[in-house]
């Protein structure tokens, strides 16, 4: 099992990284080995034993709401103890959970729950408004507050390895939002991979700042923390993360590059290491990691390990062992994964790959010869280290790790009647840029003189309806048409940000 990492992993640590057929057996092991350890801190502290008791009670709640093994549920919660409890209960009861990002609007929540045929949605009471339409229009879907509990214990189910454990949303390879089905086996493989190559990985302290609906937050942060008997402190508001750091003193952080860099800049501005003296390791990924971050953190005595993963691969495809850290590389590909490089693009298959997207048609262009086409252009050096050199897919990964579908945004901005066509891309600073070809006939007929001002106002109006990470930061008005393909589509690679 991951023999190539053996020489980079402490012997004692390596011997403790064992495989499990499903989350049920992994969780049973965690409770047995670390029962009195703190598992979660969310205002109050919960041991592994206490969490297990609540998970047992929540399975009863699921059962009472007709969410029986084999059925699908949704989880609509911010990062919280309630999320963790519901997710573990579902995963160990054979009721796979669709992890719904909290920025979804009420119509989308209704649409997804209905389209996917969910039996129940577990929601945080602070998001009551988001389930209002679902409550009114589809009463067949049970709505369960995440604080619900039962004193009656329902035991875990030995869920088959190949059964789905969770469905996570992703931009996929074509830019359209899709649900990726992750099996029990895939989640366990991704969880286990997070342990290799790091000496001090068991019984650590993690501070959670990434959303649990994102695969990096769910697998590498929550699941690996639990797997290793560590404590996970849930930061409820990222603006308070450094106050939380002062209280909790994390030893490992899982970060996207933008947050790692933000902390570096704050450290420079305030003349102290914002992460405190206890932090030893940063696992960094979900977006390209600048080698600069590795070297700068090294000066603070912190090892920053760039890695590479996808939602479709249950997070980790490759990772850097701390003993041989190559700042430009995203590390060694984990065992259990087969790959080939076709025209520079990385294709993958293996135990931690998803079992396809929920909508069957979405799989048609995602796979070839049984391999998932990642859309990422790569090279591998003589020692087997992977380097990402570009990407082929029409999806923007922001420095924050958030995925933005330019196509979906363009539809919204093209709905402005004075916009003839438009293009969304990211600039060198990772900001979203909208380039617009105005519809001059309409502009003239409306007597609009300040074209930029008019379209800017319209863009601002739409911006205000979008989640903050999807908002346009810069507007460019064109006075000539875009470069187009023979089919008259905008040639994305010949317009806008042509650096890619």
């Amino acid at each position, binding site marked *: 099992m991951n023999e190539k990492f053996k020489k980079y992993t402490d012997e004692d640590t390596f011997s403790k990284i064992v495989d499990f057929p499903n989350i049920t057996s992994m969780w049973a092991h965690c409770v047995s080995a670390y029962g009195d350890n703190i598992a979660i801190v969310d205002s109050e502290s919960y041991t592994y034993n206490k969490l297990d008791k609540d998970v047992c009670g929540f399975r009863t709640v699921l059962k009472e709401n007709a969410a029986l093994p084999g059925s699908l549920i949704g989880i609509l919660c911010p990062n919280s103890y309630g999320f963790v409890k519901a997710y573990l209960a579902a995963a160990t009861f054979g009721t796979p959970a669709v992890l719904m990002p909290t920025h979804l609007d009420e119509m989308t929540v209704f649409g997804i729950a209905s389209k996917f045929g969910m039996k129940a949605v577990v929601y945080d009471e602070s998001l009551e408004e988001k389930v209002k339409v679902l409550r009114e229009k589809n009463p067949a879907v049970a709505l369960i507050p995440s604080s619900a509990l039962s004193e009656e214990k329902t035991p875990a189910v030995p869920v088959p390895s190949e059964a789905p454990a969770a469905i996570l949303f992703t931009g996929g390879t074509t830019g359209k939002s899709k649900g990726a089905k992750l099996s029990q086996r895939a989640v366990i493989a991704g969880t286990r991979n997070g342990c290799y190559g790091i000496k001090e990985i068991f019984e650590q302290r993690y501070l959670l700042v990434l959303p649990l609906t994102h695969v990096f937050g769910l697998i590498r942060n929550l699941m690996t923390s639990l797997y290793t008997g560590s404590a996970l402190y849930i930061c409820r508001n990222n603006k308070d993360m450094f106050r939380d750091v002062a209280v909790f003193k994390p030893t490992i952080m899982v970060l996207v590059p933008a947050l790692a860099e933000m902390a570096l800049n704050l450290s420079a501005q305030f003349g102290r290491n914002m992460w405190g003296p206890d932090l030893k390791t940063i696992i960094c990924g979900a977006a390209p990691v600048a080698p600069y971050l590795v070297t700068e953190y090294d000066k603070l005595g912190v090892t920053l390990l760039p890695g590479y993963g996808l939602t479709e691969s249950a997070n980790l495809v490759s990772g850097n062992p701390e003993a041989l850290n190559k700042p430009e590389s995203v590390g060694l590909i984990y065992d259990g994964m087969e790959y080939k490089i076709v025209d520079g693009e990385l294709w993958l298959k293996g135990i931690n790959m998803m079992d396809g997207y929920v909508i069957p048609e979405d799989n048609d262009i995602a796979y070839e010869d049984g391999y998932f086409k990642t859309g990422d252009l790569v090279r591998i050096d003589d020692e087997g280290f992977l380097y990402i050199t570009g990407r082929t897919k029409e999806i923007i990964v922001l420095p924050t790790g*958030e995925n933005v579908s330019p196509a979906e945004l363009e539809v919204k901005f093209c709905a402005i009647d004075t916009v003839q066509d438009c293009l969304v891309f990211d600039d060198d600073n990772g900001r979203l840029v909208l380039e617009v070809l105005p519809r001059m006939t309409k502009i003239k007929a409306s007597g609009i003189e300040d074209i930029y001002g008019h379209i800017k106002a319209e863009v601002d109006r739409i911006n205000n309806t979008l989640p903050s990470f999807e908002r346009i930061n810069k507007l460019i008005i064109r006075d000539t048409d875009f470069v187009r393909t023979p089919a008259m589509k905008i040639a994305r690679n010949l317009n806008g940000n042509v650096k890619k």
Partner: protein
Amino acid sequence: MAMSRNDIIEKLTDVMKMAMPSEINEKALNENASLVNDLGLSSVGVLYVVIAIEEFFNIRFDDVGFADFKTVGDVVDYIEKKLEA
């Protein structure tokens, strides 16, 4: 010690300069400038500014989020009120 509006703007400017994309001209940084649309603050840029303001001015954004502010002037108003409280 009471801080004048100019003092607040000066400190806030230092914070904003660290958070703004490099190609944004500092001249764009005035009280009427929109945080997202004119200064191009990304979501992490906004987070940086919030954390730095709390640290610099020793105040807390309690029941208000940074998304509630449209312009630099709105932020200065808020800091002024918090410092007076």
